């Protein structure tokens, strides 16, 4: 299995500022994913981050707003830029462990972001 940690666990930020969330995995993985979970909503995939290539963003999410870095096989960051109260959410990173579509997906504990 994979153990994932995230920093910070929570933060309260002012409108217009940016926050960088870190995700650390205890094993080398090819693909890492960033999700958002807004209050009372389901998890929504923001982007897929592969080491050595640009992140792939889902519809409705853009690199200028959510820049992602993936410097190595165990680490990734997601930045929430120019924040507004609508960005208040839980941000989760995840990895898929195994091969093929029937892999197990492991999630980090999440970062709870509140934007004032």
């Amino acid at each position, binding site marked *: 299995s994979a153990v994932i940690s995230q920093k910070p666990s929570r933060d309260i930020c002012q409108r217009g500022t940016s926050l960088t969330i870190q995700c650390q995995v205890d094993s080398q993985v090819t693909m890492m994913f960033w999700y958002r979970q807004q209050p009372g909503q389901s*998890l929504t*995939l923001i982007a897929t981050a592969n080491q050595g290539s640009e992140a792939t963003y889902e519809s409705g999410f853009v690199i200028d707003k959510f820049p992602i870095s993936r410097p190595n096989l165990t680490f990734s960051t997601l930045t929430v830029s120019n924040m507004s109260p609508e960005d208040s959410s839980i941000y989760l990173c995840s990895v898929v462990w195994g091969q093929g579509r029937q892999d197990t997906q492991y*999630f980090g*504990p999440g970062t709870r972001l509140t934007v004032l």
Partner: protein
Amino acid sequence: SQKIEQNSEALNIQEGKTATLTCNYTNYSPAYLQWYRQDPGRGPVFLLLIRENEKEKRKERLKVTFDTTLKQSLFHITASQPADSATYLCALDMSPYKYIFGTGTRLKVLA
């Protein structure tokens, strides 16, 4: 577009009873369907995966069924315990490594 429906109302059951949660989906026919458990303040934890050609999957006290004709999955917890209280999410694979999640159903097992 694909839509997943889980009962948004909380499900309260007595300890020892079987809890049954429902996941309905429209449009797409997924190859896999997964169930996760999420506790407050934590990320989802993978529980079970069932393939489209499997009718039923079991793991200890958990059982998942998958009816591709009805476009429905049922998630059962037998002999439920207060420790089973959590939110349970279903997820469909839209393509390799891309999942869409339901909003989850909150289960509360009463002692």
